[in-house]
């Protein structure tokens, strides 16, 4: 498959992740889009892709493409909602990338947005499980968290881990979020607090589960050849790849292996022409610590069953071998579902522009960014290259 053109990210915009009682889904999105367009200094938008997972269910609004284009000053621009459960934001980026790379659009805005607080908490919890198998998982009493808990228990059983071994993922995320003004939780947590936290679905506890809240983030794409007219530090999308796996966890060939993550990462490395050793930071999908561990394994940073060791040995910190969740990750920056994938990209862009402040990863040049939908049923991976 041949790309027609290289694609650059020339602008980013983010909102604080949290409870935005005073903003509707359109207002949230609009804020991020206007901010991104301002950062990119563009005057024309050719397409808008809106990554969103649950607007119909939780914000009672479908047709988000038109709704948000209208409210963001982009009336008449072609616009679509893109949905792939937790990977919606990343999927929206992929489609925006395809449009620019294929020569069909020059200026594309990709916005991820989610508004959960208009719905009661019980409905939000139930809605999170719309991304798993409705007939053979949800109907039987399973939820997305429960499926992750099943993976975690088996992983602990096969590789001999204890709960405390996973603490490093959450502790690292919270530590990094302290310096991220857009993060939902900026308080540090300790390993002790992690081990003693109340169970949600055992063995997953409250300090293991990423918080779901409102949020919006946006990026602006344009062909690499034009980028310097708009942004002194354009970030190149070196590759974009996606794969799916069975919807139901019980249908997986190996429930402890994120095959879609492995396939999309491998393809992304291939197209970008780099290896795991070249990666300077990995914005992975730490919805739960077990997902972080398995993502590290699938992307080639650890052998099977050894992903947790990277957290135990401090290798995931900003100065470690493979920094993850550099601005707080899903765990502490927060998980506004359909918006998350775009937050991950915006954060990676800050790192590659060397604008990450106290969280700057030294000499960051290659960033791996990955989002997961459901329990690994859709995985979208991007590799970004910094300007220097």
């Amino acid at each position, binding site marked *: 498959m041949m790309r027609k053109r290289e694609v650059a990210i020339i602008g980013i915009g983010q909102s604080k992740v949290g409870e935005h009682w005073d903003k509707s889904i359109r207002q949230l999105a609009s804020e991020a889009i206007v901010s991104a367009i301002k950062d990119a200094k563009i005057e024309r938008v050719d397409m808008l892709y809106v990554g969103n997972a649950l607007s119909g269910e939780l914000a009672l609004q479908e047709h988000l493409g038109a709704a948000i284009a209208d409210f963001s000053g982009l009336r008449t621009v072609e616009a679509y909602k893109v949905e792939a459960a937790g990977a919606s934001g990343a999927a929206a980026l992929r489609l925006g990338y395809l449009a620019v790379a294929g020569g069909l659009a020059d200026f594309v805005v990709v916005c991820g947005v989610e508004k959960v607080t208009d719905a009661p908490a019980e409905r939000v919890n139930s809605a999170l499980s719309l991304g798993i198998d409705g007939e053979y998982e949800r109907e*039987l009493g399973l939820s997305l968290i429960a499926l992750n808990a099943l993976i975690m228990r088996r992983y602990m059983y096969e590789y001999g881990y204890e709960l405390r071994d996973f603490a490093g993922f959450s502790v690292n995320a919270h530590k990094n979020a302290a310096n991220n003004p857009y993060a939902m939780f900026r308080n540090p947590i300790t390993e002790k607090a992690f081990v003693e936290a109340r169970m949600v679905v055992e063995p997953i506890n409250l300090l293991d589960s990423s918080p779901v809240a409102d949020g919006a983030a946006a990026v602006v794409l344009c062909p690499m050849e034009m980028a310097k007219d708009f942004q002194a530090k354009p970030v190149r999308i070196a590759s974009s790849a996606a794969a799916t796996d069975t919807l139901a966890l019980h249908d997986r060939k190996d429930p402890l292996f994120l095959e879609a993550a492995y396939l999309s990462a491998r393809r992304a490395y291939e197209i970008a022409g780099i290896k795991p050793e070249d990666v300077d930071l990995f914005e992975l999908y730490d919805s739960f610590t077990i997902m972080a561990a398995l993502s590290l394994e699938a992307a080639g940073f650890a052998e099977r069953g050894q992903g947790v060791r990277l957290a135990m040995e401090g290798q995931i910190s900003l100065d470690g071998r493979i920094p993850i969740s550099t601005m707080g990750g899903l765990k502490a920056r927060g998980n506004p579902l359909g918006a998350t994938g775009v937050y991950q990209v915006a954060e990676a862009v800050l790192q590659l522009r060397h604008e990450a402040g106290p969280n700057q990863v030294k000499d960051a040049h290659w960033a791996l960014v990955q989002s997961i939908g459901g329990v690994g049923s859709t995985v979208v991976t991007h590799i970004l290259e910094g300007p220097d």
Partner: protein
Amino acid sequence: MSLPAVWRTRKQRYSLVGEVCSKCGAKIFPPRDVCPECSKPAQTPYSFSGRGVVYSFAVVYQASEEFEEYAPYAVAMVKLEEGPMVTAQLTDVDPEEVKVGMPVEMVTRKLYEEGEGGVIHYGYKFRPRVG
């Protein structure tokens, strides 16, 4: 799940009725008409024995709306003796007693009710073998 969806899948949920592939003999659950092993059409009904082993388990303390009144409850991935893996609740067992590798058998129990006046959803769960 909607009423028609509940009705469509009743034999699967009440009695673990799946399929057997007429080409390669693989037992399939849930039924999907194309064999996941050899990709040939598979439409012959097959009733699973219900016997299996716990592959993994978890304990749900915070449940979705419909299941709230039953929490806390254990869930498990169960490897059926005929091959397929299913996910379901465990019942008639204290969560502390559950172990990976525990032999279990299928029983049909209430999943939830759509309120006091609504339809009752029944489906498979697994429990330690009796007798």
